C-alpha cells in the first residue's frame, strides 16, 4: 500500500494501480471516458487529466493523465488545480463540438456517462459555432441501435468488441474527426457479447434496441437483482421493469462471476416474460376445450384429482430450488423426478460429486481468467456457457504479462500489454468435435468424436501421472497430441481443465477429472470446471430425485394418479411416442409454468407461474454457487410462484396441516434444513427482513416520476403498491439506498453525480474488487474430500468401430434458438437460423444445402445439409430441439437413401 496526497488529503492507494483508479477509490470525482475497469488504460480521451507535483516544493506541477500514470508512494496530486480543471472542461467542450445534444430523444439520457462527465467538468455553454459533422448510421441487427453522431471517439466499443471479446465485424474506420465505429456493411453484429456495447459506450451510440421499443427512463423503472436463466454460468443481472412488464436486463457486477459483462442470450433472452402467449389464468381442459377458471376452482379441481391415486412430481432444471423443493414436499422424495431422462440424469447427478471428489479447485469465472494453461475437453463452451468462454479468452491477455513485466509495463496499460501478447504463446487448447469460436486463438484445436476426445483426455492424465490409467491403442497422432497437451499443461502453474455435459458423455468428464487430479498431484494449482446444461442443473443435482424413466415405469404400472409437472416442457425431453405412452398411463396431468409449452397444451390443468421477474428464488450455478433472484414485479394473482402453487396443492389435497411458508425465506430455511448439501443457500442473499438504516431498500430510483400519470385514464390517485413478502426491496422509491448495499440486493447503480452504470465504481471496495456490501451468492461445493491417494476413473472408451454409413449425430447447441426460454424472446428469435445437418463428408450426389432425411427422436425429418469438412469422420451435428424436439443426446443415425425430395 502506498499513500498519495490528493488535494492535500492523504489517501491509501495500491502500487499496482493507476492514479485514476486510486482517485476513484478515494471517492474523488474524476471524470474519464476511455478507461474502463476491465479494459484498462489507453490514454485516448485525455479526460482524466490531473496535476502531479514532483515534490512539496514544486508549485507548478505537470498535467498528467491519471489513467496512464502509476501510483507511487507519496505522489502529490491535485484534481482541483485550475489548469487541470480548465483542461478537463476543455476536453468535454471538444467532445461536445460534434455531439448532437439530442438527450431528450436519446435512450441513454439520464444514465449517460457523457452527461455525468459534462456536468462534472462544469462545461455548460456551447462556444463552438460551426457546423457539426454527421454520419450515416447502420442497421446492426435486432439487438443494437446505432447513432454515430453521438460518438465521442473513446474507442471503448472496439476495444471491448475486438480486443476483449474477439469480435471481428466491428471496427474503427477513417481518421481524424471523420472517425467512425461500425461494421463494414449493415448487418447484425456477430459477437455473442455485442449487447455489452450498450453499457460500454459512454453515450448513446450503441443502445439496447428491444429496450428502445418499450423505452423508459432509468429513473422511471424499478430494478431488482436477478440471475440469468439462460445457461448454468449464473451471471448476475439487474432486471428493470415498469408497469408490470420487464423492460430490459443489464449486467450486475459480481466480482468472481460475470464482472462487467453478459452474453447476448442473457441480455436479450428475457422477452419470454412478456410473451402474449403466457398463461395468465388457471386453465382447465375439458373435453379438449381450455376454460379459464378461478384459483379457488383450480385448487378444488386439484383436490379432486388427487383422490385418484398417488401424485408424482416432475421438477425442472430451469426452475428454482424452491419450486422444485415445494413439489418434492407435495410428492415426497421418492416420487419427485429431476425431469431428466436417464442418461442426462445420471450425468447431472454426478457433477457435484465429481467436483467435490477431485482435489483440484473448482474455479469461478474470474479465477479462470488467470489460468496459464487451459484444456477444453469436448465442450463448445462458446455456446453452452458463453460468458465462461469470454473468461477463457482473457487467459490470452494474461499470457502477455511476463513480457510486460519484463518491460516494466503495468498490467492496466492495455495497448502495451496486448502488443506484447501478440507474440505470447496461447495457453488455450480446444478438443471438440466441431470448430468453436475459441479455436482461432487456441494453440491447439483438434477435431475428434467425443469418445476419442475422452480417450485423449485419459491419455493426457496418464502422461501427467503414471498411476492414472492410459488409453490403449492410441494412434501415433493421438499419442503425440496427448504428449503435447500434457507438456503444455505441466508448464502451467494454474492449469485449468474445462469439460461439460454437452455430449452426455461420462467418459469425457471422468477424463477431465483424471487430468485435474493428476495435475493437482504435480503440485500445480489446478482447476476443474464442469459445465452443466441449465441454470439450475446443479441445484437439481444437489436436490436429487428420480429420473424420468422411473416415472415412466410408475405410470406403466399404474402408480400415478396425478402427474404434476413444474416448469418443464417434457416434449423437449421425451420423444413423442414415449411421452404419449407416459401421458396415456396418467389419469391427470397438471402443468405449472410461466411459458406456453406444448406439454401444457395436453394438460388437464394449467397453472400460471411467476417468471423470474415476478418471483424470488435460488439457482445453483455450474460452479456450485447458490444465487438468489428477487422479484422486480409483484405478481398479480392468479399468477404466482410455482412453489406457492404446489404448497397450496399440498394443503388442498393431501395434508391441510402441511407446513405453510408465507415467504421465500421460510422455504429457503426448510430446504437448508432438509437437504444438507443445500444448507448454505441461506447465505446466498440477505433475507426479506434485511433493513438498511431500519428501512427496506428501494427498488426504484428517487427520481421516479409519472407513476400516477401513466394510469391516469384509470385513476389519478396514487395506488399503494403491493409489497412482496419475499424481498427486502420495497416496490417504490421509498426506502434506503447506499453503495454499501449487499451485492445480492443491488437494484440499480447510482451515486451522486454518477447516473450511468459507471457508478458501480462507488459500490466496490476497490476497482474490480468485491462489492462493498459483500459479494452475492454462496459457494456450496467447497468442502471437497481431503486429498488422499488419487482416485482414478477407468471408463476409457474403446476406439470407435462404427459402420461406414453409420453416423454419430451430436447435439450442436446454438447461442440462439436451442435454449428454451431465450428462444421465446423476439430479438433472439430474430437471430435463430434454421436447423441444418452438418456433415463432414457428403454422401455421393448430395451438395451443400441439399436436403437429406433421417429419423431422429421418433420424428422423420428432412433437413438441409451443411458441409463442414473439418468434422471428424462419422460425425454429424444437428441443433437440439430445433429439428427434432426431443433430440438432446448423441445418437447413431442413418440417412435415408431412398427419397430425393
Amino acid at each position: 500500500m502506498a499513500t498519495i496526497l490528493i488535494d492535500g488529503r492523504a489517501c491509501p492507494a495500491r502500487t499496482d494501480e493507476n492514479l485514476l483508479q486510486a482517485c476513484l477509490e478515494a471517492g474523488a470525482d474524476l471524470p474519464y471516458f476511455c478507461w474502463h475497469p476491465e479494459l484498462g488504460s489507453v490514454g485516448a480521451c485525455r479526460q482524466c487529466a490531473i496535476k502531479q507535483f514532483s515534490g512539496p516544493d514544486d508549485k507548478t506541477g505537470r498535467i498528467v493523465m491519471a489513467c496512464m500514470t502509476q501510483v507511487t508512494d507519496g505522489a502529490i496530486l491535485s484534481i482541483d488545480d485550475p489548469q487541470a480543471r480548465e483542461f478537463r472542461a476543455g476536453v468535454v467542450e471538444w467532445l461536445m463540438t460534434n455531439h448532437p445534444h439530442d438527450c431528450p430523444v436519446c435512450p441513454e439520457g439520464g444514465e449517460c456517462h457523457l452527461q455525468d462527465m459534462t456536468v462534472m467538468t462544469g462545461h455548460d455553454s456551447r462556444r463552438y459555432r460551426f457546423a457539426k459533422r454527421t454520419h450515416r448510421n447502420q442497421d446492426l441487427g435486432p439487438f443494437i441501435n446505432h447513432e454515430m453522431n453521438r460518438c465521442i471517439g473513446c474507442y471503448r466499443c472496439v476495444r471491448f468488441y475486438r480486443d476483449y471479446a474477439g469480435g471481428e465485424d466491428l471496427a474503427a474506420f477513417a481518421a481524424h474527426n471523420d472517425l467512425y465505429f461500425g461494421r463494414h456493411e449493415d448487418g447484425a453484429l456477430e459477437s455473442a457479447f455485442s449487447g455489452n456495447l450498450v453499457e460500454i459506450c459512454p453515450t448513446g451510440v450503441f443502445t439496447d434496441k428491444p429496450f428502445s421499443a418499450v423505452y423508459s427512463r432509468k429513473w422511471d423503472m424499478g430494478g431488482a437483482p436477478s440471475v440469468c436463466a439462460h445457461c448454468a454460468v449464473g451471471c448476475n443481472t439487474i432486471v428493470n421493469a415498469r408497469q408490470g412488464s420487464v423492460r430490459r436486463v443489464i449486467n450486475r457486477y459480481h466480482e468472481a462471476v460475470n464482472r462487467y459483462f453478459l452474453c447476448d442470450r442473457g441480455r436479450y433472452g428475457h422477452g419470454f416474460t412478456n410473451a402474449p402467449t403466457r398463461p395468465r389464468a388457471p386453465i382447465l381442459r375439458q373435453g379438449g376445450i381450455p376454460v379459464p377458471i378461478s384459483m379457488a376452482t383450480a385448487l378444488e379441481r386439484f383436490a379432486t384429482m388427487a383422490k385418484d391415486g398417488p401424485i408424482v412430481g416432475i421438477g425442472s432444471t430451469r426452475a428454482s430450488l424452491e419450486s422444485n423443493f415445494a413439489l418434492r414436499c407435495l410428492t415426497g422424495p421418492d416420487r419427485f423426478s429431476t425431469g431428466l431422462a436417464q442418461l442426462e440424469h445420471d450425468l447431472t447427478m454426478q457433477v457435484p460429486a465429481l467436483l467435490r471428489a477431485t482435489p483440484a479447485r473448482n474455479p469461478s469465472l474470474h479465477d479462470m481468467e488467470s489460468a496459464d494453461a487451459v484444456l477444453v475437453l469436448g465442450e463448445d463452451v462458446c455456446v453452452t456457457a458463453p460468458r465462461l468462454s469470454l473468461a477463457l479468452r482473457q487467459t490470452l491477455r494474461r499470457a502477455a504479462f511476463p513480457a510486460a513485466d519484463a518491460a516494466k509495463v503495468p498490467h492496466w496499460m492495455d495497448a502495451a500489454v496486448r502488443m506484447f501478447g501478440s507474440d505470447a504463446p496461447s495457453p488455450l487448447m480446444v478438443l471438440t468435435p466441431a470448430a468453436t469460436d475459441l479455436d482461432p486463438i487456441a494453440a491447439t484445436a483438434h477435431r475428434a468424436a467425443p469418445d476419442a476426445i475422452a480417450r485423449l483426455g485419459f491419455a493426457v492424465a496418464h502422461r501427467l501421472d503414471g498411476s492414472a490409467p492410459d488409453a490403449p491403442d492410441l494412434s501415433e497422432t493421438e499419442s503425440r497430441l496427448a504428449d503435447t497437451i500434457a507438456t503444455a499443461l505441466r508448464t502451467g502453474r494454474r492449469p485449468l481443465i474445462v469439460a461439460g455435459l454437452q455430449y452426455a458423455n461420462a467418459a469425457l468428464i471422468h477424463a477431465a477429472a483424471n487430468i485435474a487430479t493428476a495435475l493437482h498431484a504435480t503440485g500445480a494449482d489446478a482447476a476443474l470446471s464442469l459445465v452443466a446444461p441449465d441454470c439450475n442443473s446443479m441445484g437439481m443435482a444437489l436436490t436429487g430425485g428420480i429420473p424420468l424413466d422411473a416415472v415412466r415405469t410408475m405410470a406403466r404400472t399404474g402408480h400415478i394418479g396425478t402427474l404434476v409437472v413444474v416448469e418443464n416442457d417434457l416434449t423437449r425431453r421425451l420423444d413423442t411416442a414415449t411421452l404419449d405412452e407416459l401421458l396415456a398411463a396418467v389419469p391427470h396431468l397438471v402443468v405449472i409454468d410461466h411459458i406456453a409449452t406444448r406439454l401444457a397444451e395436453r394438460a388437464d390443468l394449467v397453472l400460471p407461474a411467476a417468471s423470474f421477474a415476478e418471483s424470488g428464488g435460488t439457482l445453483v450455478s455450474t460452479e456450485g454457487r447458490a444465487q438468489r433472484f428477487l422479484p422486480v414485479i409483484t405478481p398479480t394473482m392468479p399468477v404466482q410462484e410455482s412453489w406457492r402453487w404446489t404448497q397450496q396443492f399440498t394443503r388442498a389435497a393431501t395434508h391441510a396441516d402441511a407446513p405453510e411458508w408465507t415467504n421465500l425465506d421460510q422455504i429457503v430455511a426448510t430446504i437448508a434444513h432438509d437437504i444438507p448439501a443445500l444448507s448454505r443457500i441461506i447465505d446466498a442473499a440477505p433475507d426479506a427482513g434485511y433493513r438498511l438504516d431500519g428501512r427496506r431498500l428501494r427498488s426504484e430510483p428517487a427520481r421516479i416520476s409519472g407513476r400516477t400519470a401513466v394510469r391516469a385514464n384509470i385513476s389519478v390517485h396514487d395506488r399503494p403498491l403491493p409489497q412482496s413478502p419475499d424481498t427486502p426491496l420495497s416496490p417504490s422509491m421509498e426506502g434506503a439506498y447506499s453503495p454499501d448495499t449487499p451485492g445480492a440486493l443491488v437494484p440499480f447503480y447510482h451515486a451522486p453525480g454518477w447516473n450511468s452504470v459507471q457508478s458501480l465504481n462507488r459500490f466496490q471496495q476497490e476497482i474490480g474488487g468485491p462489492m462493498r456490501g459483500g459479494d452475492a451468492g454462496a459457494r456450496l461445493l467447497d468442502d471437497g474430500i481431503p486429498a488422499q491417494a488419487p482416485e482414478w476413473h477407468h471408463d476409457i472408451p474403446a476406439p470407435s468401430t462404427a459402420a461406414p454409413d453409420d453416423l454419430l449425430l451430436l447435439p450442436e447447441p446454438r447461442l440462439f434458438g436451442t435454449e428454451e426460454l431465450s428462444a421465446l424472446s423476439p430479438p433472439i428469435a430474430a437471430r435463430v437460423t434454421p436447423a441444418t445437418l452438418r456433415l463432414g463428408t457428403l454422401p455421393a450426389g448430395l451438395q451443400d444445402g441439399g436436403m437429406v432425411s433421417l429419423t431422429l427422436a421418433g420424428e422423420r425429418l428432412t433437413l438441409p445439409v451443411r458441409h463442414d469438412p473439418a468434422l471428424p469422420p462419422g460425425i454429424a451435428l444437428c441443433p437440439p430441439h430445433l429439428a427434432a424436439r426431443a433430440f438432446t443426446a448423441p445418437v447413431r443415425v442413418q440417412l435415408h437413401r431412398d427419397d430425393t425430395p
Partner: protein
Amino acid sequence: MSTADAPLPPDLRARIADLAQAEHRLRAASVSALTMVQDYFGWVSDTHLAETASLLGMSPADLDGIATYFNLIFRRPVGRHVILLCDSVSCWIMGRDAVCTRLQARLGIRPGETTADGAVTLLPIVCLGHCDHAPAMLVDRTLHGDLTAETAEQLADTLRAPTP
C-alpha cells in the same frame, strides 16, 4: 468500373499471399496488399477488399478500418489518371490555390471528383516533399513542380487527350 466485382486475378492473389507470408504476421502486409490491388484496379472495391482480407486472415471490417485510415488507398473509383495536388504550406504560399482553381475550371470538377469521361480525378495531398519546386503535384507516379496555372492546365489537357 466493370472490374470492381470480378475476383482478384490468380497471379495477384498469389503475389499478395507471398508478400504476407514473408511478414512476421500476415496482417503486416495489409497496406502493401491494398496498394497492389489498387495498382491493378485503380481503387479497392468492397469485393476486392473482402477477398484481400481473407488472404490476410483478417475480417473485412478490420482491413477496411486500415484502408479508410490511409490517404493513399482509394475506396471509391477514380479516373484513369489521378492528380494529387499538394495543398500544404509551401505550395500554398507559392500559389497552389490559383493552380487548383484553374484545374477545377478546366476539368469541370472539384477536388475529390472525377471528370465525366473518367479520365482524371483531382485530389488534394499533403506536402509532397517538393517544396523547393512549389507548387507541386503528383500525376500518377510522376512529380511535377514549379507549376503555374498554365502549365498545370496543359498537363491536365494531355491527360484527357484520348490515348493513342
